[in-house]
């Protein structure tokens, strides 16, 4: 069972994800270049935070055309677990794997702080280790994390319970306090907060571990196609 962390030019949380998975969760994890086109050896794919291609034009706008994204699309279509964190979330929306967009924060500034979140749906492949409505603390660090979608999409997200994390004290203007959503099939998650920054008590919070544990559990339970 092997995790792929995609490295786009300008990704800067890639090593943090590797450290969280390898050193804390004891998983087999590999960095995969944006130039690669094959993800068949992996059980899950993670798109890290950072500023891919400098975030020029719009966050994720250029990265969605990187060669690896074809493989990510296929991997997701086949039901594989894909998670995009922060810039990774932006890339997933630009690529159309998740609905909506991430606009500039309300107030315009970049915000780095700890955010109180509610686990709005603990029945997903990414959140099963949490309890429904559990309150957790995860760091956020973004300038464009203000989630927006139209009314119809929002109604659908709600109806299908695809809103997975919400902010308790909305820091960026996100619609319906959205901090993380899944696709319709439930195998693709995008979230602005950084679970990989919250896996060691030394650094202030361990609440992010649940997310990785949930993924590991999901993958262990199902027969992993290799």
């Amino acid at each position, binding site marked *: 069972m092997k995790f792929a962390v995609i490295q786009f030019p300008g990704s800067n949380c890639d090593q943090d994800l590797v450290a969280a998975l390898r050193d804390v969760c004891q998983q087999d994890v590999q960095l995969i270049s944006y130039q690669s086109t094959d993800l068949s050896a992996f059980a899950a794919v993670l798109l890290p935070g950072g500023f891919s291609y400098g975030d020029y034009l719009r966050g994720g706008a250029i990265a969605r055309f990187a060669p690896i994204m074809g493989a990510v699309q296929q991997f997701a279509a086949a039901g594989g677990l894909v998670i995009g964190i922060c810039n990774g979330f932006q890339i997933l929306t630009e690529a159309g794997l998740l609905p909506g967009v991430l606009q500039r924060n*309300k107030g315009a500034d970049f915000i780095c702080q700890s955010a109180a979140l509610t686990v709005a749906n603990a029945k997903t492949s990414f959140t099963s280790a949490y309890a429904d409505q559990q309150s957790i603390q995860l760091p956020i660090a973004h300038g464009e994390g203000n989630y927006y979608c139209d009314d119809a999409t929002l109604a659908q997200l709600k109806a299908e319970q695809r809103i997975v994390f919400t902010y308790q004290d909305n820091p960026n203007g996100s619609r319906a306090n959205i901090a993380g959503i899944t696709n319709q099939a439930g195998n693709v998650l995008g979230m602005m907060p950084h679970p990989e920054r919250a896996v060691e008590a030394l650094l202030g919070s361990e609440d992010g571990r649940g997310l990785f544990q949930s993924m590991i559990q999901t993958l262990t339970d199902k027969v992993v196609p290799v």
Partner: protein
Amino acid sequence: MYRAKVYVTYKDSILDPQAEAIKTALHQLEFPELTQLTCGKYFELELATTEAKAATTVEQMCQKLLANVNMESYRYEIVAAE
């Protein structure tokens, strides 16, 4: 050689936090006459192509990259350049 001018703006239904911030700032700078402000992106492209193809090319560029059609609309003008 053709030159394209491309304008990308948020769709009307979308709240633009940046435009709000600029509008507030302009009001604070004492420009009360400002009633509305939209902001967007502006691109100028030079294309080594034929007149027939220029429009298709620019259309594709907008669709694929320059605009996020989920929330932005775009328009362009194409003129011959020397």
